[in-house]
Structure formats: C-alpha cells, structure tokens
C-alpha cells in the first residue's frame, strides 16, 4: 500500500493534517449562529466520506470476518452520508428571505 500514488510519509501527513485543520478552523470561525445547526449536520455529512475507505476495505476482503466488518462499515458509512445530506438539505432549504416567500411547504405534515 505504501507504493501507491497517494502514499505519503508521516511528516507529509502532518503537513496535510495541519493545513486541513487550519482550513476547517478558518471556514467555521465566522459562521453566523443562525447556521450552527445545519453546519453541524453539514460537517457530519462531510466525514461520511469514510464510506469510501470502507468500500475499499470491503472490495479487498478475503475472509468472512473481513466481509462482515466491511459490510457493516459500508452500511454505517453510507448511512452517515445519506442521513447527513438529507437532514442538512432539509434544514437549509428552510432558510429563505421574506421577499420570495413561497407558500409551498416541504416534508412535515
């Protein structure tokens, strides 16, 4: 695995982590409080990318244990992705300015 095109040394990994952490910090630091809840679920959606790792693991599974764990991983990851997206999307769709206030309602009975 270390000879793939995306392999990296530990130091390089630290550089990437540093940059990513800084990015997350800067991006959030000025968010208005009105968006805190959708933002929590939006970032929740983003870490759903773990499903990609789980898929790779399942694809390369050779034992039954591996398959079971991989299956569980993909299921959980997919749930994270889809749930996070749907919930965020629903919340954000509700924030609209008064001018174009359409009477149609979504979801909720």
């Amino acid at each position, binding site marked *: 695995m270390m000879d793939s095109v995306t392999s990296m040394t530990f130091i390089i990994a630290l550089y990437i982590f540093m940059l990513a952490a800084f990015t997350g910090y800067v991006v959030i630091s000025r968010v208005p409080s009105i968006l805190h809840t959708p933002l929590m679920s939006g970032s929740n959606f983003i870490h759903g990318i773990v499903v990609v790792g789980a898929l790779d693991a399942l694809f390369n599974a050779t034992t039954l244990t591996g398959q079971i764990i991989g299956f569980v991983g993909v299921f959980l990851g997919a749930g*994270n992705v889809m749930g996070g997206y749907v919930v965020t999307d629903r919340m954000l769709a509700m*924030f609209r300015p008064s001018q174009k206030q359409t*009477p149609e309602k979504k979801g909720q009975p």
Partner: protein
Amino acid sequence: MLIEYIVGLSGLIAAGLFIYGLKAMSSPVTAVSGIVTAGYGMVFVVGATFLNLFNISPDARPHLLVNVALAVVALLLGCLWTGWRGRTVQMTAMPQMVAIFNGMGGGSAASLAAVSLLSDHATSGLHLSVTIVGALIGCISFTGSIIAWAKLDGRMRKPVRFGGQRIFNAALFLIALVLGALTVMQYATPQGVLPGILFFAAALLFGVCMTLPIGGADMPVVISLYNAFTGLAVGLEGYVMGNPALMIAGMVVGSAGTLLTALMAKAMNRSLTNVLFSNFGDTASSAKGPEGEMKSADPSDAATSMRYASSVIIVPGYGLAVAQAQQKLYEFVKMLVADGVDVKFAIHPVAGRMPGHMNVLLAEAGVPYDMICDMDDINDSFATTDVALIIGANDVVNPEALTDKSSPIYGMPILNAYKARQVFVIKRGSGTGYSGVQNPLFFQKNCTMVFGDAQAVLSKMVEAVKALGTA
C-alpha cells in the same frame, strides 16, 4: 497506475468541493448551494472508488462478486434507511438524528481500523498506533452518540450515576489504552487477536460510560464533540489507508467541529470539562429561588393587548419546540402584522437545545429571516417595546444571570425582555428551565403569565384576534 491516478484525483476534487461547500454554508444565501456542491463531491468520489475494483489485491479477486454484491447491498440499505429517516424526522428531533448519523460515521471509521488490524500488511508501528487511536476515537463516537440519541429521544430519562463513576471511567479508559498497546505489540500474531477484540469492546464500552452520566440537556454539546471525534477518527484512518481525501475531509471536520463545540459551550457559559465531567443539568435543583405573586391572564386577554400594541418582540425558547407550536405562532404573528403591529423575533444563541435551534424551527414555519434578530442586534430595543412575548423560554430571559453571582447561569448574556413595558410568558406551569433555577422575571410587576401548553395557548390567541378582527 492510471486507475490509481484517476481515483487519487477524484479524491482531490472531492476534498476541494467539500471545503468549498463548507465555506458556502457560512452564509444563508449560499448555504443551499454549499451542501449541494459537497454532495456532488461525494457522489463523484464514491463513484470513482468503484474503479478500484480493477485494482484489488490478488487474494481478493476470487471474492470479487460477493464483495461487490455486499457493497451494493450495504450502500443501498444505509442510504435508504437514513434517507427515509432523515426525510421524515420532525424538525424538533434533529439533534438526536444528527447524533445517530454521526455515530454511524464513527462506527464506520472503527470498522476500517478493525479491517486494517486484521489484514497483515501493516507497515510500521506508527501506522498501527495511528490505527488504534483512530479506532478508539471512532468507537467512543459510535456508542457515545447512540447514548446521546437515546437520551434526547426520551428513551433514557435519567442520567445514570453511581459513586466512583469517574474513577471507574478513568480505569476503563486506561484499560482500553493498555489493550490497544498490546494489540499493536502483538500485531499479526495469534496472541494479538484477543487483546484486539477486548480493545474494541473496552473502547465501545467507554463511549457508553462516558456519556451515561451527562445530563440530557448537555447532549447537543456532546454531539458536536462526537462529530469532531468522528472527523478526527476518519482523518486518522485515512492516513492509515493512504487516502488523503479522507485525511482532509476528516481533519477539516475535526477542527471545525472542535471550534463549533467550543463556541456552543461558551454560549452556554460553561466550559467543556464542565459539560463532560460535572453533574450539572440533572439534579432538578429544588432550591427554588425567588418567591412571590405571579399574575396570570388568559390567552384572549393577552392576545387583545398585543393586537393593540404598536410593537411586539417575541422570545421563543425550548418550550416552543416541545409544544411544536411554531406554525401556530407564525399564524398569530401574521395576524398581528396584518393589523399593523411591528413584530420581531429575538433569538438567543442558546435558546432551545442546540445552537440555531430556534432559527430552524422558525424557518420551518416559514418565518422570513429578516424578522429574526440576533441577541446583540435587538437587546437595546426591548426598553422601547410595548410587549415582549416569551414562549417556552426561561433561562435565556432570566435577569438573575446578570446580577446573582451564586446563580449557575451567572454571566450568561440574556435577552433583556424584562425591560419591555409589558411581558407575557407562555408556559405550562412553574417548571424551571434547563438550568433548574427559578426566574425572578415571572414575579415582576410588568409580567403576566399565560399558563398552558404553547400550542393550545397560541390557538386560543389566534381565535381571540380573529374575533376582534370581525368585531
């Protein structure tokens, strides 16, 4: 090689889209496009991952068909179940829903770690250690989030507490660490299997035990913390798998989530340690503070005086969410506005049980966001306002926070509703709020209580104004 490049680039693009999307979510105007952008990134990178099927290890080739079938089934099951739950959940139940989805991510990260530990091509002790740390964090996030869900969903009413709990938890954590170290040291030997299994068990158990004693009302902060945890776990497992897209997405969420957690805790005037390790928000502190005479009025009288007021500021709180009365409230407000009353909503940053809770509720009811004012913008206006209508809010309008140093909420900024000429408070009885302290505002001269469930009271108010209109 080519496939590796394509997959690698797809991760790059996805990571870029995630960051871009997260940035777009920082303004209500672009927020919707932000989540959509991030969504495209996700579809893209998941799709590209299937290209890896052309590149799997030789050992796995015989299992290819089964594995792909399993993957598709797992994907479908996961997406369908959470998609359905996410679409149909009530807005007030959002916190626990987010907890579940977050826990799933943590569990997925933990299972990635398990797979890495099972496979025998780990390269270094460093890799293994990172794997273990990621697994620990992922497991805590997994079971911790489930407990958080159970509490918020009302399936576990009382915080579970016993003597020496902190020592027990600390011991459990140490045991998990030791088991993890054993697993690393005995990696790829038969003796390593048992410590490995026990390690996961201990980590999962620790997630439960760490969350059990925390009061239900503190859960949103804890969920946000676990959200950051899952991000961190995903980032670390991404390093283990040599997948920079996971590293970046995970770490971005890890740091953003940590900041969000800190902002939340700060807005509630607490420290994170305090949330995690103190027994606050539980002991229904029966030490009732101020006593005195509460005036009360019935809904139609209150509605009438608002109908003829020139300005009204509405302060919604957790009780509005409990009563699910946001639609009724907006109906009432629309009638007032039609009659020429100047109505604004004042939102305290920690009103409700998660940050922005009230904004979401009101947005759901269709309240345009330019009627909604932040605390800092509106606090000066109360003094010149005819009526402040408090609906199911308590702590966020408690003037004791400004004056009484012994109060647990001392120091929390509040909405100055007490300064309004007339204050109406809709609540069911004399129940306290989240912090468990009584509110001297309710005994103030200019304050009138309107007892009853918010939904019922507001319905009556709507009727009353209608009656006035036709009169």
